[in-house]
């Protein structure tokens, strides 16, 4: 009850745009519906709350992420899906005012425990960002950076083979193999994003987080990256934030719908898109809110 009244204040703007929205929330509540559990959970978030100062950005989210599957986080802008994603590799640590409660485990160990070094965590949980952000270095150095700082390659030949295989798996090798010394920034947007993916998988992480990886790309580049995700999910657990419901439907096995910090509904992708259980989910995927 108190929480609802708090929300009324913060959500006034949204409520003004959507007059019937308040009612629905009251009708359906905000407990997660569907199935947060999965077979062989690899990353488990339990009762996660995130506060940015006074702003309660993530509210009591529980979600399991399985191995070898793509989980898509969808929801309107500002619903907390990116914030939640950044909790999974502690990228929020660098924000002074961010405070996180609850528990997130990776393969059984608490990633927020004092013993966990965020540097070691990020080697296991890689991240691809919304805007392609290659380093202003050569293509080779971009991919080699992670293995270098983590000391993954014993010698130059081993590093070469890591760089080549990573570029190959990212589907970029054929396009750049003759110009590995060119700056990474000289590539096109789609190529840059695949370079960023190659850079991420060069460290051989166990989980890859993708924060709207295709939002800055054209449909052809997007299709290539989606194909790439299909291949990558054979080895990695992938969590992707996306604004495109078509993309979520195409690439993901499970979908989680976030709304104003609450995880509203999680389930298998085809279930959510064909038969959403929550009114809010239905409104969003049918285009009534968002």
């Amino acid at each position, binding site marked *: 009850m108190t929480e609802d009244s708090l929300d009324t204040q913060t959500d006034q703007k949204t409520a003004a745009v959507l007059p019937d929205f308040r009612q629905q929330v009251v009708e359906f509540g905000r407990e997660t519906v569907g199935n947060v559990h999965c077979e062989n959970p690899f990353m488990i978030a339990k009762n996660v709350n995130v506060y940015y100062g006074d702003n309660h950005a993530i509210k009591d989210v529980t979600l399991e992420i399985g191995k070898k599957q793509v989980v898509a986080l969808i929801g309107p802008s500002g619903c907390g899906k990116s914030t939640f994603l950044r909790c999974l590799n502690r990228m929020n640590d660098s924000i002074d005012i961010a405070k996180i409660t609850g528990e997130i485990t990776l393969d059984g160990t608490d990633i927020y425990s004092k013993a966990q070094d965020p*540097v070691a965590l*990020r080697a296991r949980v890689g991240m691809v*960002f919304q805007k392609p952000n290659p*380093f202003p270095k050569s293509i080779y150095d971009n991919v080699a950076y992670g293995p270098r700082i983590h000391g993954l390659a014993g010698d130059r030949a081993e590093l070469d083979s890591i760089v080549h295989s990573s570029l190959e798996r990212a589907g970029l090798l054929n396009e750049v193999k003759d110009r590995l010394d060119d700056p990474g920034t000289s590539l096109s947007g789609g190529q840059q994003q695949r370079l960023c993916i190659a850079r991420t998988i060069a*460290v051989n992480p166990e989980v890859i987080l993708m924060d709207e990886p295709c939002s800055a790309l054209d449909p052809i580049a997007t299709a290539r990256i989606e194909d790439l995700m299909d291949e990558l999910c054979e080895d990695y657990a992938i969590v992707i934030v996306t604004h495109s419901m078509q993309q979520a439907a195409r690439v993901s096995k499970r979908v989680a719908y976030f709304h104003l910090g609450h995880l509203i509904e999680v389930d298998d992708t085809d279930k959510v898109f064909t038969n959403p259980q929550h009114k809010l989910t239905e409104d969003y995927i049918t285009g009534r809110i968002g």
Partner: protein
Amino acid sequence: MNSKLTTAEKVQAGLARRRRKEFLFRLSGMLATAVGIVFLMVFFATLIGKGASAFKQTFLLLDIELNEEVLAPDGELDLAYADFDSLVRAALRKEVADVSGRSERRELNRLVSIGAGYQLRDFVMQNPELLGTTQPMWVPAASNIDMLVKGNIDASLDESLRQLSDRQIGWVEELRSADRLKSKFNTALFSNGDSREPELAGIKGAMMGSFFMLLVTISLSFPIGVAAAIYLEEFAPKNRLADLVEVNINNLAAVPSIVFGLLGLAVFINWMALPRSAPLVGGLVLTLLTLPVIIIASRAAIKAVPPSIREAALGIGASQMQVVFHHVLPLAMPGMLTGAIIGMSRALGESAPLLMIGMIAFVVDVPGGFTDPATALPVQIYLWADSPERAFAERTSAAIIVLLVFLLLMNLAAVLVRRRMERKW
């Protein structure tokens, strides 16, 4: 009425007014720029007009007899005490007719600089085998003769109103007609330290003093400034204390430089007992002065590094220090270096704080190290501008020209460094 007009017509109606406004705005901008350029031209024109002549100096050609009996009356030559001046005087007396009496001889002797004796001594030191011969030699004329030749002394004035007597002017004419007078490049200006005699005064001492000082300043203020900027931007928690530090750094950048001089006097000289007038202390004071400038410029450069690069590195698992040293610093370096060079050029032009730590002393010797007594270029300019001799006026302008050339070179270096390093990425 108005409502019947179409949008296009309404736009058309206001167009002339908009164009006029735009024209006036451009005009005022051009005028403002023109005013600036005019002032700059006037500044350069007067400076070069007054200072250019200082790069030339009048010399006299004398046939000097290296008389051993005068130099070594006891048969033993002691260079420190040998009377080279009288050889110069004797040579001068041979060049002019009718000199009679002590006072006339004294007047004649004032035509030649006392530097002639030193020059002769150095010559004999290097060529001792030439003793006993007669050598033709160009020796510097006294500064008043130089001024007369350069037209800075008006010969038409009454004798009592000018520095030179009628007789002296007559002798100069005599020497000139005998081709014994010549204007040559003033090497003394660049190879000598300060002197009471304008024709012997040079800026080498001041340049070396400035050089040692800037060496101390850059080697301290750049690493300290960059380290402080990195800490404040990347590691320090953003809280009240950080805000307080930021406000104070910005404040320090605006503190009058003389205050830093007083601080240097109290801390470095009185408390730490470092030598006075030393480039070391000057450099330390200028370090304090340039630190805020460098910190502010470096912080701005660090802030300008796109956060996406930081995130990319963090996302791969780089530690915060790796993020800073592998990504942020290389990208921020051009901005940091530009800030450092601008700070250095400010330090090069500072005089006020140096007055407080004794670098205004009259120092003849060219400093050879960090603790030798020294002065600096801007202080030298101040000292010369304060001197009564006519010849120091042009030397003041010349010293300003040299300082400006150095500033120009440093600022040019800042631009080049920036271009070069930015192209790399």
